[in-house]
Structures are given as C-alpha cells and as structure tokens.
C-alpha cells in the first residue's frame, strides 16, 4: 500500500484575512479615539463607586487644589455665541475674528476678562505660562465673572439648541445642558461651595461631580 505523501514543509496558514481585520480595527479605533484636550490644570479627582458616565453636553467648572476656577462648555457654536454674549456685556472686551475662532475650539480657560484677549492671541508656550500664573476666573461678589460666564453659557446653549431644532421637551429630558464640577480631592470645600452657590443663585441644583472609578461594592450580601 502506498504511503500517503506528507508535505515536506510545515503547513502554513493564510493569515491575510486576520491581518486585514486587525488593521481595519486598529484604524477604526485610531480614528474614533479622541485626544484629550489640552488641560491647563492638573486635577486629581476623588474616587467614587458611581458608574455614571459624564454626559457630553456639559458646562464644566474645574477647581484646582488652590481654588482656582476654570470654565469650559461643550460645543464650538455654543462657545462662539457665549463669547459674543460676554462682549455685549463688556464692550471694553475687544475680540478679533481670529481670537474668536481660537476661543471656539479651545478647551477650558481660567482667565479674567482683562487678560482674556492676550491669552487668546498668545501662542502655546506663553499660554501654558499664563495658565500657571492665572488666579482663575474671579468668583468674588465684587467681580463675579463666573456667574456671567454661566449665564451666557446657558443662554448660548439654548440659542444653539433652537438653531439645531431641538424641542424643549428633549432639552428637559436628556439633551439638556448638564453642569459638571471637577475638583481636586484636596480642595477646601469652601471653594467648591462658592461655585455651587453661584449655580444655586441661578436655580441650578443638580450637578455631576467628576470622579474616577473605584471598585464597586455590593452590599446585598451584608443585608441578609
């Protein structure tokens, strides 16, 4: 009986489809991954067991360890509208079209109005230095700029939503603006309370506190 012929070389597997798929996925993830925007301050948020994700449409107030306040709002058009509103309030604030464009794509900022113009025209390295030196957005009752930003931000968001044709009902449900506070764990509570009080004056009572995830706890075993 003739022996079946064995192939001499090792059997080779065609890996091409797998490689194709692999690279397809890599490309997908590279393209969908969002780069974290340049953050002017480093904030070490406290941890919690909450698994709620941060909503996308948010007004974010960041408070660092020294109590400096930074402001951010979601959306290019909203930011543009908001800055326009601020210019209306403060005619002394002169912003060129170039600066406006920059502001609309920028992340959070922590400048008082007097320095905002300079900040917007400065280049990356100067800006980083200004971020380090800034005292944050003023929140004291004499010059409460944060309160104005919050007001203008909210109005800008509503105008933008109207332009996009989002109905009031949807705005009330899940497409509305949420208010997030991101503060360092070592910040004194009075600093945070000050910011919260500014929101409360505007009848905003619900906040999303940004935290990092900590291992969950299941208490049901204990309660038996």
């Amino acid at each position, binding site marked *: 009986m003739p022996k079946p012929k064995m192939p001499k070389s090792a059997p080779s597997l065609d890996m091409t489809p797998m490689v194709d798929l692999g690279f397809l996925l890599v490309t997908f993830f590279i393209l969908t991954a969002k780069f974290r925007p340049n953050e002017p301050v480093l904030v070490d948020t406290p941890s919690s067991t909450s698994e709620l994700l941060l909503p996308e449409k948010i007004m974010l107030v960041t408070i660092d360890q020294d109590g400096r306040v930074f402001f951010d709002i979601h959306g290019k058009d909203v930011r543009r509208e908001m800055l326009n509103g601020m210019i209306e309030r403060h005619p002394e604030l002169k912003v060129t079209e170039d600066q406006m464009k920059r502001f609309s794509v920028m992340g959070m900022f922590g400048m008082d109005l007097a320095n905002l113009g300079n900040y917007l025209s400065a280049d990356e390295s100067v800006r980083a230095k200004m971020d380090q030196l800034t005292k944050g957005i003023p929140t004291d009752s004499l010059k409460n700029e944060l309160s104005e930003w919050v007001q203008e931000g909210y109005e800008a968001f509503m105008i933008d939503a109207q332009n996009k044709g989002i109905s009031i009902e949807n705005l009330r449900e899940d497409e509305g603006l949420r208010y997030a506070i991101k503060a360092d764990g070592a910040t004194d509570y009075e600093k945070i309370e000050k910011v919260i009080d500014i929101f409360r004056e505007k009848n905003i009572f619900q906040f999303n506190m940004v935290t990092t995830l900590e291992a969950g706890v299941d208490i*049901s075993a204990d*309660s038996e």
Partner: protein
Amino acid sequence: MAEIIESGGGEKGGKKRPKKGAVRMDMTPMVDLAFLLLTFFILATSLSKPKTLEIIYPKEVKDETEKTKLADELATTLLIGEGDDYIFYYSGKFDPDTTTLIKSDFSKDGFRKVLLDKNRSINERVFELKQDLNSKQLSKEDYEAQYKEAYSKIVNDEQAPFVIVKTIPKSKWKNVVNAMDELNICNVRKRAIMDMDKQEEASLEKRVKELGLPAPTSDNSND
C-alpha cells in the same frame, strides 16, 4: 497579498534555476504589532471616560417654617472636619452638653457599617426588589424602569433614616465626595449637605483634642 511571486530573474544565462515556490513573508511580527495597537486603543478609549457622581443640592430655603420637618430619631449627622482620615457622627438631635461625637472613617468597617445598620430594612427591601425583578426575566428597559420606580418608593419611605452631612470651610472635597458615595452605596437617599453650626464645630474641635488626633496633614495623597 503576502506572497511575492518571483518571476524572471533566473532566466538569464540559464545557470540559475527559477525557484519553484513563492516567497513567503513571515507576517507574525506585523500581526503582533497590529494586535498590540488594537488592544491598546480598545482599552484606552473605554477606560478614559470619566465617571460622575450626581449630587442634588437643596433649594435655598429662607423661611424657617417652610423647612420640612423630619423626625429627629431618624437623623444621623455626619461632621466632616479638617482632618483627612477621620469623621465624626452623632444620632438624633444635637445637644452641646450631652451629645458625644463618635469617631469614624470611610473605610469598609467605618461609617458604612453604621449606615448599613441604620438603613437595614431599606436595604433588605432593595435587595428583595432586585431578586424579584431578576426572577421576572424582563427586558433591560423594563427592568430599569420598574426598578427605578420601585426603588425611589422604597428609599423615600417616611420611616427611612436620613443623613445630614455638615462641613466646615476647610473640609476636604474628597471627604465630601466620599460621604456622598457612602450614602449612595447604602441606599440613603434622604440627605442634605450644609454648613456646620458654631456649636457643633466647637464640639468637634474639643473631641479631636480629647482623642489626641493628629493635626491634618498637608500632603495630597488621595487615599
């Protein structure tokens, strides 16, 4: 795609023989790299999303008579002082002469045990609700909706204990978040956050001295 078929090359001169088989490229390193990148991006994209803790602050109530009256015996007050790793609590109404503040912390056997104990009946009901709904085999949306409704009914029960978190200006933010988190874990929905009274503050300071606790450290470790 991965095979390069050699043609020509060996024809000139007739000395070299054309190779019979195709040249195979070893793709393993490339595949390794591709999957390494893939893994990285998969993990990096889903893990970097920040989580949030929802806190609802009460409306400012100016008029004393408008304040909701709650039974004192259901109240637990948590005092968050300057200290990093200790908190104090007392039950019921505050009396500067008789109330002793009990020291606790945010560890597993600390304040959580106290809360679980006080909130036992509510927790049992939540647990039963979960089991009940699980046995019904509902779709995810139905489950969420039913759970939400029943849950809010249970935790807002008239007899449910409530917790007041009191702070001083120098309280650390992470302790406030920790406190809120503990309340979430223990299903305590009736809660309030407010500033500490002068009397309570004095009593807290006295107690800290009595116990000889270390002064608050200024390092910023997050534990």
